[in-house]
């Protein structure tokens, strides 16, 4: 069942979920001419995501820009019912899936693989931005 909330609430719930685990999530991070919904450090890696209530294809599209600078990328979706097509396309695109359940708990559906297409100068730029946020 799709959780009734806005994209903003979806991100906020994820941020508080991570905060309880001692991880700071930066939201609305300007990068490469767009705004990444969320970015955080995890095990010395930069992980970023785009959140979508529906239209996961658009989320995947938006995630393409993350590939220049994030070690791992995922889409944050509001539904636990992730279709096989969505799963397949994310797997093919090297993007993970995290969903927010109705009980507002976060579930990792597909762990994002390590991104091998990083361009270090652009990742440095992102790290600099995070320092200034």
């Amino acid at each position: 069942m799709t959780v009734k909330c806005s994209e903003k609430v979806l991100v906020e719930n994820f941020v508080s979920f991570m905060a309880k685990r001692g991880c700071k999530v930066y939201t609305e991070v300007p990068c490469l001419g767009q705004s990444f919904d969320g970015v955080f450090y995890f095990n010395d890696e930069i992980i970023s995501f785009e959140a979508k209530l529906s239209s996961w294809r658009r989320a995947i599209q938006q995630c393409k820009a993350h590939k220049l600078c994030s070690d791992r990328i995922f889409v944050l979706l509001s539904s636990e019912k992730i279709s096989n097509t969505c799963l397949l396309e994310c797997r093919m695109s090297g993007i993970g899936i995290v969903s927010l359940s109705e009980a507002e708990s976060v579930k990792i559906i597909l762990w994002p693989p390590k991104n091998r297409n990083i361009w270090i100068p652009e990742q440095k730029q992102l790290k600099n931005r995070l320092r200034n946020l």
Partner: protein
Amino acid sequence: MNITQHWMMFGTFGEQRFFSFPNAGCYDGIVLNGSMVCYAPLGLAAFLTEKTSHFNYLIDHQMHAFQHPVHCVQDSKKELKKSLKRLSQRLGKVISEKAGITPVLPSDFSTDEAIQDLTDSCISFQNKYLSEHIRANESFRYLAIDDPDILPNYIIAPYFYLTASSYSYWLPIMEKCGKASRSAVSDRKLLCGLVISQDILEDSEAVDKILEYYKNCMFDGAMIWIDDFAEDDVSVFQLQSYRDFVGRLSESDKFVINIHGGYYSIMLASGKFGKSLTAVCHAPEFGEYRPVVPVGGGIPISRYYVPTLHQRIKYRDAAAMFNSAGWLADADTFYREVCNCSECKCTIQGDTSNFTLFGESTPKEVIRRNGALVRLEYPTSDAKQRCLRHYLNRKSCEFDFVRASSGELILRDLNANVSTLEKILGIDGISHILKWTKTLSNAK
């Protein structure tokens, strides 16, 4: 005068210096918009006389602006834009009375008087408005207002925007105006303005009628603008129709300029693929295609012109493309595979991490309609200038290349680009080059 003439459209005064970039004399002419002429005649007069006195120029009177729904010519206060108001006052009684109130209609020009007034005003505007201001300049004050040295080199007859469904209404009026213009203009080249929708190209009857009008009025050439005609996004059929159309317009060595053209137009203008365009124009800030009804706004995104693709793409897409191809590995690879123009060398300076300077941006907070706060990045002024100088360098190279090369070499160059780029972008990413090659290969 060059074959394959390279023209540039005047956009803003901030871009004046680019009319001698990458070198003085690389542009053959300037297209000025009527609204800009009316808005800043003194500034433009100074620009033409001090910086670009050796240039040919023409004034696009933009008469079509007044036939569109009035919201297209209104500002945010729902008033007729100032520059267009001044322009409307120069284009005859009908337009000055209706501008910003209601669209101009074909029925407004049902009398000979209305036609003559429209034609006389339109020609007089192009001939006198700017030359009066030019003459005020110190170095030109001894010249008469009608001295050829300060007049536009081409006069555009009155024109309206033609679509497949509206051309039959406007063309008879344009023909009457064209004939009246022909009687009035004998000392300079008279061009017809063909501002048309893409569907005209798909309508052979419409094309025939336009060519009949063109012949009947004995024009010396044509200034064309096809609505939002992105040469890298249209079909093979549209490319062929466009090629055939401009080919027919250019018969008998007529002067034909596309005021919003890209590399496909430049290749056509080389003359290596049959008679075609004489000149291609773009704006400093791109402008290789443009919708007739302006659609402003949007977030400015840095775009980098990829020379082998002949496309200007978002900085992030260019960086991703070059990174996956390994072209950002070191500076020599970048210069060899991407670009070695003066701007790229100056920016990269031996270290490809400096390629990020083409995408340099500053974050700004924007409040969306739903009240949500979003941080977006806007390109810095420096980044825009870098992208612009690189773009102009490459445009200059493109013109030089097609002028100096045979048709076979031009096609071989495209095919070589395909071989390299298809491995990176897949067939979809280079489909426009395949379409160009196909269209040009079967040119007469």
